[in-house]
Structure formats: structure tokens, C-alpha cells
């Protein structure tokens, strides 16, 4: 049986012919009629025989094994008018279509009805998607941000108002693989972590695999965030200029012969405010800016061969002379490049081949009385990926591929001109995967796969089975289960207060990769037309976690493996997601109950007890309850009101129990203070509450193009949320000082589209 299946796959790929010539097939792309942009996840179906498909990440679809006849071909996609046409198919027909959908125009009081079917793909277990239009509209501190929007989804938490890091299902940010056009992005933040590097103008699709992700992805313990840039408008030259308080953006797209281009740029514009602040306030940097560029060029050689090249380049640059002889310089950022060849072998075999290059750099320099401390951390990552999708028949959709690459890790520390730590590790890596989406009946869909990972640094070979099953109990209830094993060969040293010193480390001899299992159960329901109610329950383990030992701050003379500590963790939770997608008022409510735990040897053990009796503890970002409400309501043709509210259990922190003042001496310091604690992070900060509002006014810019004002207020009730407590030992007794999160913060943005 396996041999026959394999033979069929090979023959079909080689000769590109349908093995079942008595039936017909349709394939092609679904695009935005105005821009020619391909649409990801759009649905297409033949109504009479209830047979359909959805577009993949390149906007391509295929429907096979269609009996000859005349059918109504219908397509649908959120935000677009439904498309229908009659189509007659004869035996052996293989028709390639290019379906163009009209963007919906908002029409006052009109009720907009969406079919629940089109969300089916997005409702796969563990997947969450956020509309790119919503990202731009949501109230955001200073500017629209992809990660801040994702943080509103159940299962995703923010560490603080100051951090855009994604803490998904109990995992730290490094447990999420972030892909931009399939290239790994190692540094996804600007402004010390305040917001993400992704320019919302340039983004077409944001897809988050929160957990239980399929075998086509790997390399991270927790989740995958896959972001695709826009292709560029294939019909007209268009652009956008946006002026904000913190940053300004420009975007340009247009057609070229047989293709399109897209360019986006963003730069912080905070320097004038810093200059004003410097007049009255100490500690303001002399120079600080960030910038990023996104670009993409598409060229269609034929309907079967499409090429694209894309790049991203961004960085943050800080020049901060605290005093004349105390200067901090900081540069960090990321660059990605990729080239993609998409080839359609046949109506059943679709493929793409991608070359990716990603570089992360971080090089802080401290100069203190002419004594210089430097660190240089680089990751160079280049890879070749291939993914082949083969639709064997109505029951089997097979996907397989390979990912081969090399990675160079470098970490160099110097002190006063002398190199104190110099580690350069080179690792080749590879992964092979195969998965089969098997639909044995109308009610069942089973996705089984296996991924084999190899990492040459340390010579690690790891196998990872993945399995998920969907059972369509009724038209409106879909039950789901998933299991997967995941491995991670990197770890990130970061601090949620400041991501400017983020440093990546990789597995090596004596530093085994982390691994974990994930179990997910879910139910996706449609209680009423236009509404959705989803539930997912998960449990995940985290084993062999490796992270920097927090008690070691000097690595000189230490072996690489000696700078780490190794531990375990686990997390579990339940997520509820209720959304309203119809009518004037739309939005969602997400609720998460979750908990996450860590355990490291000789850490958090009872004082005076055995250091081996280390206890589990919750990391700071653990929140038991988390509720998000997002509402969008058009007030008129011109005005739209957007509201979001977040309530969450206070984060975990450690309450000092006792204190000691050591007299010390001249060598280690005099009057050294310390606390004793009973349990690490066993207390909760006050509950977190924040409401943000936004008013959007759409108009025109002197008749030259569309324009939009955004008036936003962050933390509209000025709730005094607590970030953490610091302690002032100058007072006796010790003074506990509250360090607050964001106060009320207004923001104005003006955007012109031309």
C-alpha cells in the first residue's frame, strides 16, 4: 500500500499528469481585484457537490476529482464580496483560474453576513489569526503594532505595558518561532522591546500557531508566528504616508511587468521630543532612533512559475552619554533576505523553494572612565527550504519538505581592551518532514506527520511525531485534539524590562536541546450565524530548558556549558474565544485560564533545606486569569469607534520575608543588604486593568487621496497598574516603592493614502 502511494506521488510529480483522467480539476489563485494581491486562506467551493478548498500561503488553491458537469463556483473571504460563477467541466479538464474578489465597501447600516465556512482553515487547532486591518485600527501606544494586537488573543500574554514580547501558552518569547516570509527573525522588537519590528503597512497576513503546530514547522518548543509581507499592487501605483508621535511611515507599491513591487520604510521621529526633554530632565539619550525597511519584488515567469525576492532590515541605535565619562552605545537589529520560487508541477502538485538569510546583531558598548566593556553577539543563519504539497485524492493531502541550513553563533565579551569570553559555534541544521491530511469521511480530518531534526553543534538528531484530529460533530460543532513533540536548539537571554541586550545561545556539547510534548483539546462552535465560540484546553511540558545561570556574571575562563543552568517546566490552561463577526458592531471576547511553572536545581529550595529540593515556581509573566474585550463600532460613514479592555490577574512576584544588613568590608562593600524569601514568586501584584479607546475619522487629503485621523487614548481610566516593586534600603524600615505601568496616554496619527 505504502509502495503504491509512493509510486503515485513520484509519477505525479515527475509527469505532472492527473492519474484520474475521468474527472476534472480546477486550480489557480484568488486575488484582490484592486491590488492583484493574492489572498491567503480564501475559500473556494463547488456549491452543488459541496466540494471545496482554500488558498495556501501563496494564494493558490486546487480542487480535484470533480465529476464532469456544470457547477456554481463560489469564493468567499473576509472583507470581500462573495464571488460566484457558473462553470462547466468535462472529463479530463484541468482548468486554471485567476479569481479576483472585490473588497467590500462599508455601507452604513447594511448588515454584513459572513459564512462560517471560510473560517474553517483558521479554526484549525491551535491557530489564531488577526486581521491586518484590525492591527492598524486598534488603540496602540504611539503606533499600530502587530505583537500588541496578538497579545489580545487568548493564550497570549504580555509581560508588561513596556514589552511587546509574546508569552504564549506559558512559554517565554524565545519559544515562538517568528517567520517573516519564511525567514527566521531573531530580533522582533524595537525601542528596547516596546513594540515589534513589523511595519503593519507592509503586512498581508499574520498567522499564529499557538500550539500543537504541524510537522511542517519546527525548532521551537511552543508556537509559530508566520507573517507574510504584501506582494505589492499589481494594478496601480499606490502609497501611504503616516505621521505619528513616535514614528512615521511611508509605503509604496505598484506593478512591474509580470509582477509587482512593495517598499515600506519606518523611522522613529522621537528626537525632537528627546531634545525638549533633555533641557529639563537628566538621563535622556543624545541620540536614539530605530528604522526598518521592507521590500518585495515579484515576477511571474508563467502561471506555473513565480519568483519573488524580499528583504527586511531594521535596527535600533542608541547613544547615551550619562556623564562625560560614562557613555552607553547600543546597536541591535535584524536583517532577513529571501528568494522564493513557486512552481506548480501539476494541478495536484504545488511546490515552493526558498532561500533565506537572517542575521541578528547586538553590540552594546559601555565606556566608564575610559574603561570599556563590550559585547558582540551575532547569529548568521542561511537556509534552503522546500515544501511540496501533493493532493493525492479527496482523502489525502500530502505535504513534505526539507529545511537545510547553517548557523554561526558568536559571542565576544571584552573588558578594558582584553577579550574575556570568545565563543564561536558553527552548526549545520536540517529537518525533513512529511505530513498527511487524511479525510476518511465527511466528519473526520486527521493530520499526521513526523519531523526529523538535526543540529550538528552537539550532534543532535531528534524525531518529532505530530498528530491532530478533527471531528465535525455537526455543521456547527467541531471537536479537535492534537499531540506533538517539539525541540528547541536555541535559547534567548533577555530581560522583560529591556530587550536591548538580548543574547542568543545555541545547543552544543554538554548543552542538550530543550524538548517538550504538547496535548491540546478543542471545540470550535458556531452558536449562531455570524458568531463563533471556541474553546481549547492544553497541557505542555518543557524539558531540558537551558538558560543562563543568573548567578554567573563573569564567563571568563568558563567552559560554554558552565554558563547555563538546566531545568524543566510545564504549563496548562483553557482558552475561550467568543467573536461576533456580523452586524455593525463586531469584536471578540477572549478569556484564558492558565498557569505555567519552572523548576531549576538549587533554585527556590527551602532556606536551610536541601538545595536539591527545589520547588516549582511560576515565572513573573504567569497570569491565572486574562480577559480581553475588543469592540469595533462604526459611528457614521466617517467615524469609527474602537475599544479594547484587558483584565488580568496580577503577575507573580516575590515578597521579601526577612532582611539582614551585613556590615561587610572594603573589599566586598560595606553595609550590604539582603532579603530572605520563603517562596519565589508566590505573591501576586494587584490585578491588571486597562481600557483603550480609539476614534478613527476617514476622509480625503485635498481630493488627492484617502486620509485618516486616529485619536487614541491608552489607559483611558488612568488605572495605576503595577509593574513591580523596588526597595529603598536608605530608609529604615525598608521602603517598598511601586513602579507603575503606563498612565493615561493620548496619541494622534494622521495617515494619507494616495
Amino acid at each position: 500500500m505504502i509502495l503504491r502511494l509512493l509510486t503515485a506521488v513520484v509519477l505525479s510529480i515527475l509527469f505532472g499528469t492527473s492519474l484520474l483522467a475521468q474527472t476534472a480539476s480546477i486550480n489557480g489563485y484568488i486575488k484582490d481585484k484592486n491590488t492583484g494581491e493574492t489572498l491567503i486562506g480564501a475559500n473556494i467551493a463547488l456549491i452543488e457537490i459541496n466540494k471545496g478548498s482554500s488558498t495556501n500561503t501563496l494564494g493558490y488553491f486546487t480542487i480535484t476529482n470533480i465529476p464532469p458537469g456544470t457547477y456554481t463556483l463560489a469564493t468567499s473571504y473576509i472583507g470581500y464580496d462573495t464571488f460566484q460563477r457558473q462553470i462547466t467541466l468535462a472529463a479530463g479538464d484541468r482548468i486554471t483560474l485567476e479569481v479576483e474578489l472585490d473588497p467590500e465597501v462599508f455601507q452604513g447600516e447594511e448588515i454584513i453576513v459572513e459564512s462560517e465556512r471560510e473560517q474553517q482553515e483558521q479554526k484549525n487547532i491551535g491557530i489564531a489569526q488577526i486581521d491586518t486591518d484590525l492591527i492598524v485600527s486598534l488603540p496602540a501606544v504611539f503606533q499600530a503594532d502587530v505583537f500588541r494586537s496578538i497579545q489580545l488573543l487568548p493564550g497570549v500574554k504580555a509581560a508588561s505595558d513596556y514589552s511587546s514580547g509574546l508569552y504564549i501558552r506559558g512559554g517565554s518569547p524565545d519559544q515562538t518561532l517568528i517567520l517573516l516570509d519564511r525567514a527566521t527573525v531573531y530580533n522582533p522588537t524595537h525601542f528596547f522591546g516596546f513594540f515589534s519590528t513589523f511595519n503593519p503597512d507592509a503586512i498581508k497576513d499574520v498567522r499564529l500557531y499557538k500550539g500543537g503546530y504541524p510537522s511542517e514547522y519546527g525548532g521551537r518548543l511552543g508556537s509559530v508566528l508566520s507573517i507574510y509581507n504584501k506582494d505589492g499592487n499589481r494594478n496601480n501605483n499606490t502609497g501611504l504616508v503616516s505621521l505619528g508621535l513616535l514614528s512615521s511611515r511611508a509605503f509604496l507599491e505598484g506593478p512591474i511587468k509580470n509582477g509587482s513591487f512593495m517598499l515600506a520604510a519606518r523611522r522613529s521621529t522621537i528626537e525632537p521630543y528627546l531634545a525638549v526633554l533633555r533641557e529639563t530632565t537628566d538621563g535622556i539619550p543624545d541620540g536614539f532612533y530605530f528604522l526598518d525597511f521592507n521590500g518585495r519584488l515579484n515576477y511571474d515567469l508563467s502561471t506555473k512559475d513565480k519568483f519573488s525576492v524580499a528583504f527586511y532590515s531594521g535596527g535600533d541605535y542608541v547613544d547615551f552619554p550619562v556623564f562625560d565619562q560614562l557613555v552607553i552605545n547600543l546597536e541591535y537589529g535584524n536583517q532577513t533576505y529571501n528568494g522564493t520560487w513557486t512552481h506548480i508541477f501539476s494541478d495536484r502538485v504545488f511546490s515552493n523553494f526558498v532561500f533565506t538569510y537572517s542575521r541578528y546583531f547586538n553590540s552594546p558598548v559601555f565606556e566608564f572612565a575610559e574603561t570599556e566593556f563590550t559585547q558582540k553577539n551575532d547569529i548568521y543563519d542561511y537556509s534552503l527550504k522546500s515544501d511540496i504539497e501533493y493532493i493525492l485524492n479527496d482523502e489525502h493531502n500530502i505535504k513534505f519538505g526539507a529545511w537545510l541550513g547553517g548557523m554561526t553563533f558568536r559571542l565576544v565579551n571584552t573588558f578594558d581592551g582584553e577579550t574575556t569570553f570568545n565563543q564561536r559555534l558553527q552548526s549545520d541544521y536540517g529537518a525533513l518532514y512529511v505530513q498527511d491530511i487524511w479525510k476518511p469521511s465527511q466528519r473526520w480530518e486527521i493530520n499526521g506527520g513526523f519531523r526529523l531534526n538535526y543540529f550538528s553543534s552537539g550532534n543532535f538528531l531528534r524525531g518529532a511525531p505530530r498528530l491532530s484530529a478533527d471531528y465535525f460533530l455537526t455543521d456547527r460543532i467541531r471537536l479537535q485534539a492534537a499531540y506533538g513533540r517539539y525541540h528547541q536548539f536555541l535559547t534567548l537571554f533577555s530581560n522583560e524590562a529591556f530587550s536591548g541586550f538580548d543574547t542568543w545561545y545555541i545547543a552544543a556539547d554538554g548543552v542538550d536541546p530543550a524538548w517538550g510534548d504538547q496535548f491540546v483539546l478543542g471545540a470550535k462552535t458556531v452558536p449562531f450565524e455570524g458568531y463563533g465560540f471556541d474553546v481549547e484546553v492544553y497541557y505542555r511540558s518543557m524539558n531540558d530548558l537551558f538558560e543562563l545561570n543568573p548567578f554567573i556574571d563573569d564567563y571568563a575562563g568558563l567552559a560554554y556549558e558552565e554558563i547555563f543552568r538546566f531545568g524543566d517546566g510545564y504549563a496548562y490552561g483553557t482558552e475561550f474565544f467568543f467573536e461576533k463577526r456580523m452586524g455593525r458592531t463586531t469584536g471578540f471576547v477572549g478569556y484564558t485560564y492558565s498557569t505555567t511553572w519552572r523548576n531549576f536545581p538549587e533554585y527556590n529550595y527551602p532556606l536551610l533545606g536541601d538545595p536539591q529540593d527545589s520547588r516549582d515556581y511560576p515565572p513573573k509573566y504567569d497570569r491565572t486569569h486574562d480577559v480581553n474585550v475588543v469592540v469595533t463600532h462604526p459611528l457614521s460613514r466617517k467615524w469609527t469607534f474602537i475599544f479594547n479592555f484587558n483584565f488580568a490577574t496580577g503577575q507573580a512576584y516575590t515578597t521579601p520575608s526577612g532582611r539582614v544588613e551585613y556590615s561587610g568590608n572594603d573589599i566586598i562593600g560595606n553595609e550590604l543588604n539582603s532579603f530572605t524569601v520563603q517562596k519565589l514568586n508566590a505573591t501576586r501584584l494587584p490585578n491588571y486593568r486597562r481600557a483603550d479607546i480609539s476614534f478613527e475619522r476617514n476622509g480625503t487629503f485635498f481630493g488627492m487621496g484617502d486620509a485618516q485621523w486616529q485619536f487614541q487614548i491608552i489607559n483611558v481610566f488612568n488605572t495605576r497598574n503595577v509593574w513591580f516593586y523596588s526597595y529603598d534600603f536608605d530608609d529604615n524600615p525598608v521602603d517598598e516603592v511601586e513602579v507603575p505601568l503606563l498612565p493615561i496616554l493620548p496619541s494622534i496619527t494622521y495617515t494619507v493614502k494616495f
Partner: protein
Amino acid sequence: MKYLLPLLLISLAVLNSCVNYEDEDYIEYFVIEAYLFSGEQFPEILFSTTNPAFESYSFEDVAVSGADIRIESLGGGIGSAPDNVITYSESTPGVYLPDFEDFVEPGHTYRLVITAPDETEITAHTITPGAFELLTEDNQSVEYQGEEQLELVLTPSEYPGRQSIYIFTSIAQDTSVENLTPIYFDFFDSDDDLTLEDFRATSSGTLNEGNFTENEDGTINLDVPWLAIAFYGINDLIVSTVDDNLFDFVSSQETQLGGFSVSPGEIPNLNYNIDQAIGVFGSFTTDTIRTNILRPAE
């Protein structure tokens, strides 16, 4: 469908019941503090208890009187029979002094034994770092941030099972404000809470031996970093090597209250190597030279 929600809510309650991680009330611990310096007399030992974190602290209030304290010399290492015992007596509440004059040896094992008034027996060991010598000429004059940095040359110290760990300290002899080096003047000027005494002794923190250049003859070179100099004029430059107890104490104290390596609000306990108490029973081996730091030429 109608059973789905109740089932989920029940499972949620079950999950919730699994979590039992409540903080515990304050517990009082004995605290000891003693620093042995190789070649010097046995030091005073401070014996006290912890204080509730947010209550007013004074050593006199927490001092423990009436303890029986001794330091045993274990020439044969940990587990061997004592070859010498230094007994202690209380001089003022919580402060204990040796009963007779004796000197700490480098590269030697000592055991602290305290019997508290409630009969709790507290023990700790220290292995004093091996002896070393500063070969650099004494009483040199060096121009601050001049062409030549002051270079210290020292014979290597040894410590069982690991590389040596050093602390570099400069102690100014004239702490007048006019003598402050520019960076320390800026610090002093920017914070009203700081006093000149705060800068009298500046220390590098712990530095691994791997930071330094090893010469062919086995000696080690250390360029004195300018950040270590807070005052112009006469400074004593002290190079110290520390035992495991001090290294753990210093590094974990920095992590607890000033570290960047844990999330804000996560406060780990210090690493103590004491049985039945917290604190530090640590040892140093040191050598000192005196140098004159000259103001930069105009």
C-alpha cells in the same frame, strides 16, 4: 453542546485545585558574618537573626548573645580532626572575638561551629585561597588616564576545583571632593544621598582568573582599569582572591538586589554555604601595594 460548557467549567475547577503555592509567613533565621583574611588574626564574628523585612532594623535588636563559638583548624581538610581550635567570647551583644591571638593560613580549611542559646548547632567550612604575591613595585606614581595603565603582576593563587576568583579594590587615603576623578565627581554631584565615604573604597566585583593574561613564567598580568580609581592621590590597591562562600555570597547578593538576569520582582535567596543558619563565613587572601594617582597633565 449543552454539556460542553459545564464539562469545561468542571475541568477548569479541577485544574485550579491543582495549584497550591501560597507564600509562607516570616521565619526567623540565625545569621552569621565572619571574614577570614589569610595572614591576619582571626576576625570578629557577628551573630544575629533576621528581621521581618519591613520592620525597622538595627543589629543591636537582632544580636544573639550567649552563643558558644569556635573555629576549628582542619589541617587534613574537611572531615579531618581539628588540629587547632580558636575559641570565641562575646564582647558586646552579638559580637564575638577570639580568645587568643592566632593567624589565618592561606590554602587551609577551617570549620566554624556555633551552638546557639537554643542549642541549635550551626556549622560552616571555608577553604582559604592559596597565597600569592603582588610583584609590582610599591609606591609608583601613575598619571590618571595617561598613556600607561598601571599594571599589576602577581603570582597565581590556587583554589581547589576551580580557577581563582579575584576582587580588585582601591582605597583612597585622601577622600576630599577636590580629589574625585571626573566620573566619580559626576556621580557624587548627581545624587544628594551619596557621600564621599561611599567612594573611599571601590571594588571591581568578582573577576575570574580567565580575565587576565598569563605570562610564560606563570605570573598573571592585570591592568588596573581606570574605573577603579575614584580619587587622585595615594591609593592602596588591593588584590584579593576569595573562597567559594564569598563568591556565592557576593554574586547572589548582586543578583538579588541589582541583577539584570532575573525578571524585576523575582527575588531569589542568596546562596549560603552554612548549615542551620544564613550569612557568610568567607575567606580572602590578599596583597596590597600603594600607588600615587596623578592628575592628568593639563
